[in-house]
């Protein structure tokens, strides 16, 4: 084996190095130095993120179990940026609440371990590697969800997450075993050539899809979402809603377009129905939420429904629009969660009513929240508009006009509840509005990064064109 070929795993090895470095730091750091774990981890991870943008070759390792190509690097970079923002937004909370309990290191370790799992999951070349990655991505998150041990809701959310997550993984694994039974192989390439539509393979697909649908919180597998988001620490909820969901969406779309393509006539119907159900159910539940975390949870369920529109166009266009939407969605949602996090850290308030009159005391935060929500609602010229418009275009290109129509109606409904938050912040006047406050440097940096993403990712067309090129090349 050529040692140079291990460079293909640069992302994974780099992250592993960081995890080990943090562990060693933890062992040798004195009690006083424990607080500096946060800047230490942030600097390492920032370097890792920047290194990720260096060019890398295509290739596969371990007899095809692990593969890399520009599309996968691109998405790993997106995940890196997303996790970096999550870490920046968590820094304050870690310093104030977690360092005293001597648990800051574990938080960062678990988060990065989960990210490592996602790397392996999307880089997988066979179902075995995929499953290992999936589990590595899920299990640390369960611990993170239950991180605020002093809060009952957090523990409850942790149990809910681990139970339903285990069930979902089990279901997916069951489905994989059926697919193995029909094709006799676990390798994606081999399955793609031998898979045919039979009762057994379709059943295998349904089980497998259900497992992933849980991770993406598609209806009817979305029930855990709101409870877990509400109970989990805010940064963990934001990690779940963007990073975890984004990675699952990307691996799903890759598998559907390559390995499971022989079942296209079948799965396109399922995607069609699930898309409608997810959008509508997510929207209708989001309408009545008061708690911002639950609100964003249902909004993220609805967003997942929109993503499915892109999957109906089984070509470079579909893949590109899904990938692009996930990218802009990560920035938009992190912007919204970041503001919730900043406000909650200072005042402990998380309800929409508490935000009344916020613009007059904290104009910058309110503006960022407005940008993020408008981007989620798909208002130009923010990134979310381009993301959604292109998803619709992907579905319309295959003649799914009815579905596009249902989607745009849903987008209008979603605008209503996003406007409710904006109404509270901008329209209402309130004597006891949350007073003016300044966030610390890390939080500001995290918020500014997401704001830049929201403003630039759509208008700057070369980004989409790049995604389109790598997607087309990937499928050829």
């Amino acid at each position, binding site marked *: 084996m050529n040692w140079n070929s291990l460079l293909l795993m640069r992302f994974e090895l780099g992250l592993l190095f960081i995890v080990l470095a943090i562990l060693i730091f933890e062992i040798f750091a004195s009690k006083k130095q424990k607080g500096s774990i946060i800047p230490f981890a942030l600097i390492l991870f920032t370097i890792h993120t920047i290194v990720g943008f260096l060019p890398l070759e295509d290739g596969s390792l371990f007899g095809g179990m692990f593969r890399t190509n520009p599309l996968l690097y691109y998405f790993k970079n997106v995940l890196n940026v997303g996790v970096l923002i999550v870490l920046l937004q968590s820094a304050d909370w870690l310093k104030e609440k977690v360092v005293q309990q001597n648990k800051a290191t574990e938080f960062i370790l678990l988060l990065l371990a989960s990210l490592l799992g996602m790397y392996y999951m999307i880089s997988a070349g066979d179902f075995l590697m995929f499953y290992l990655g999936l589990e590595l991505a899920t299990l640390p998150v369960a611990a993170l969800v239950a991180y605020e041990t002093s809060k009952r809701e957090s523990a409850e959310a942790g149990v809910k997450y681990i139970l339903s997550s285990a069930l979902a993984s089990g279901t997916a694994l069951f489905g994989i075993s059926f697919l193995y039974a029909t094709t006799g192989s676990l390798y994606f390439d081999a399955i793609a050539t031998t898979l045919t539509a039979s009762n057994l393979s379709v059943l295998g697909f349904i089980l497998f899809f259900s497992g992933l649908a849980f991770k993406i919180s598609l209806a009817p597998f979305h029930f855990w979402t709101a409870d877990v988001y509400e109970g989990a620490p805010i940064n963990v909820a934001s990690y779940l809603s963007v990073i975890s969901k984004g990675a699952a969406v990307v691996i799903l779309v890759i598998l559907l377009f390559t390995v499971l393509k022989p079942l296209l006539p079948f799965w396109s119907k399922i995607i069609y129905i699930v898309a409608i159900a997810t959008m509508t159910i997510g929207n209708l539940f989001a309408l009545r939420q008061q708690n911002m975390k639950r609100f964003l949870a249902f909004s993220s369920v609805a967003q997942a429904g929109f993503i499915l529109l892109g999957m109906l166009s089984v070509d470079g266009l579909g893949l590109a629009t899904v990938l692009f939407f996930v990218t802009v969605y990560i920035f938009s949602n992190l912007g919204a969660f970041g503001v919730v996090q900043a406000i909650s850290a200072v005042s402990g308030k998380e309800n929409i009513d508490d935000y009344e009159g916020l613009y007059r005391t904290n104009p910058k935060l309110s503006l960022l929240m407005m940008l993020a929500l408008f981007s989620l609602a798909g208002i130009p010229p923010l990134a979310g508009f381009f993301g959604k418009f292109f998803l619709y275009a992907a579905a319309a290109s295959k003649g799914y006009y009815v579905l596009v129509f249902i989607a*745009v109606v849903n987008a*209008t409904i979603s605008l209503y509840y996003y406007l409710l938050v904006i109404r509270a912040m901008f*329209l209402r006047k309130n004597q006891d509005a949350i007073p003016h406050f300044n966030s610390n440097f890390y939080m500001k940096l995290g918020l500014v990064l997401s704001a830049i993403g929201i403003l630039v990712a759509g208008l700057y*067309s070369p980004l*989409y064109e790049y995604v389109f090129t790598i997607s087309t090349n990937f499928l050829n």
Partner: protein
Amino acid sequence: MDILTLFVIVPLVTVFVLVFAKNLKQVRIISLVGMAIQFAMSINLIFAYLKERAVNKDIMVFTQDYTWFKSFNIHYAIGVDAISVVMIALTAIVVLAGVFISWKVDDLPKEFFITLIILSAGVFGFFISLDLFTLFVFYEIAVIPMYLLIGIWGSGPKEFSAMKLTLMLMAASALLSVGIFGIYFNSNADGGALTFNILEIAQVNIPVAAQNLFFPFVFIGFAVIGALFPFHTWSPSGHASAPTAVSMLHAGVLMKLGGYGVFRIAMYLLPQGALNWTDFFLVLATIGVIYGAFGAIMQKDLKYINAYASVSHLSLVLFSLLMLNKTAWSGAIIQSLSHGLLTALFFALIGMVYGRTHTRDIAKLGGIMKTLPFIGAVYVITGLAYLGLPGFSGFVAEMNVFVGAFEHADLFRRILTIIVVSSIVVTAVYILRMVGKIMMGPLVNEEHATLPKATWYEKTGLVLLMIPVVIIGTMPYGLSEMIKESIAPFLERLL
């Protein structure tokens, strides 16, 4: 920088500078300077256009084309014909007048002017776009700021009105987006590449089935903002709750996006669909004209009267667009302009009266001509122009509309035309009654015997709007000549 892109750049620069404004005075001066530049540019554009038109016979002039999203064939493509030029001039006038009228805004003034100017940037961008995608982007940029403008600075049930207006208009734009996809994915029907470019699509024969399917999407998508019955309900409550300058801009300019879009996109790009659907939408437009007029009669609140009158007059625009002939079309465009100016005048005047008397109820107003001679005089003139007195723009517009409508000899159109013509009488009733009661009648409230006179900025705003009303009314020839040339391509495509 080309002459058209500046229309988007100047507002954006103004907004950028406004962000750094420190006090109310600076905010006013920056907004005024920015919009005055915009106004000067629009006057310049009219002359530049006439000069260019003499040598350039293309459908659109001053065209520029930059690729934006290559894989979708989305371009930043701009260009103007006479219709867009006059609409741009209208917008510039109304926005500048709106800045004058909003001189007194004191709650979050910086945010008010920033939002107002962003809205205007959207409108300008809309009128210069030749690409469906950029046009759609600018359209939504023009609509969304209304939520904040009405919600923060409005009055009455402002939260409700703002939400209703925004949701109805965004639902319409959702329909529109489906229509745009329908056009885009059929734009290769003749074997070319998929395109969003309006001029290129106009060369393509989109299959008739697709045209019939997508025409109503595009038509309703635009016509909702043009107050098509029964989708007009956002308009009265929205106008009544909006602050003065926003009502002016909204009724004066934003609602014109509807007629413009119907004409330029729905009818021009889907001609077969237009021919098949005209009868249905003609009936709706006729109902709108009559319904709006009777609605205005029934109202007691000045703003509601004007809002319903706008529904009536804008339905008239749609009506004459659907009449599908040269005279009616130029009537529709002149009516758009005329209504834009007059309704902006009305809302400005109502704002001034309300600012002084704190009521918009007709019953509580009367005889304020004596106390407010300038405002009163302009009010009377505006009212007369509105009901179509010769010498003002309203007459020229309605003349063209009805002459065009009567050109059709078939019974169906005859009947509709007669119904619509009768709305002139109804219009006269509510305008004369309103003006007579509040201006001429006996003094109702003793407190109204002494009211502050019109200030310099109010007068400037009113005069600014009044001048083009008189120009169009007395010298309509130049305008209709200018428009006629640009209508020719539509005639070719549709008839």
